[in-house]
């Protein structure tokens, strides 16, 4: 459950982000009939996004753009990316967006109902520290 590749390519798997290829290779370099571009590893992807949201003077537009792009990918973001995004919300004094992000990742999990509780569990220290209530706490997960 803790490996990043678990969250990648949900029921509509379209990307081959994980390290295990059909040919059994584990290097990031392409082989066989794939293009010769270097494929980003999961760790590089995560690090890139954590860095994006960690920008100290991130502005509201960048937060919006980052989140909307991230949600557009065929994956559920790792807790560390979400932690970085929530802290960006705190810097922008935007509690509503923080709650919205939690709703969005719950929706991204789709039929995999065990992903969201795991994320909340991992984010618990941050949620407590920043004082972010989950949608469930606020009763907003019901109609």
């Amino acid at each position: 459950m803790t490996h990043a590749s678990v969250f990648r390519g949900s029921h509509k798997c379209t990307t081959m982000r994980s390290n295990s290829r059909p040919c059994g290779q584990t290097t990031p370099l392409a082989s066989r009939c794939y293009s010769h571009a270097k494929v980003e590893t999961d760790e590089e992807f995560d690090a890139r996004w954590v860095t994006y949201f960690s920008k100290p003077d991130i502005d509201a537009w960048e937060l919006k753009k980052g989140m909307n792009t991230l949600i557009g990918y065929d994956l559920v973001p790792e807790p560390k990316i979400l932690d970085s995004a929530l802290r960006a919300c705190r810097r922008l004094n935007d509690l509503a967006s923080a709650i919205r992000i939690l709703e969005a990742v719950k929706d991204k999990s789709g039929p995999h109902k065990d992903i969201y509780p795991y994320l909340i569990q991992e984010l618990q220290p941050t949620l407590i520290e920043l004082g972010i209530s989950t949608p469930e706490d606020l009763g907003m997960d019901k109609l």
Partner: protein
Amino acid sequence: MCMLHLTTGRVGCLLSKQVVVALTSSGARMSSHGHHEVSDSVDMSQPMYWDRLDTPLPDRPWKDVLDSTDKSLKQKEKGPWTALSKEEKIALYRLKFNHTYPEMKRPSHEWKTVIGGMFIFFGITGLVVFWQGHYVYPPQPHTFGEEWQAKQVQRMLDMQINPIEGFSAQWDYKNKQWK
């Protein structure tokens, strides 16, 4: 992709990808979503709000004209969020967003309209077909009559039409009946 609209406030499901736009007036900015301009047009050059599952943070907040209570709440938001009560947090969310995700995903009764409309059209078509059969079609050819048909069958058997596997093969010539 245009579905039947029953109420103006209906939010489309993800499949139809409809956009709920918060109408803003170009002059003095009125309160969030109650007041419509005469022509009901939206200024597309301004950032718009929409509830979309794949766009968690729209271009602008839902309510951007804040009264004094909202403003003081926004001020409080700048401090530690642990100091906010649940109601205040919900209020802050509702200032920025219209529908929550469960509200966006709520099922609608639209399918009943669609199926009902389908059946209505089937019914109307049925009436048209019936009227047509009665008033438009010419009389049936005389070859459709009972007597003619019987004579026709007898003739076909006499000619032994398809005697191996077809028509006459089903007729028992000895006992003069169908097999």
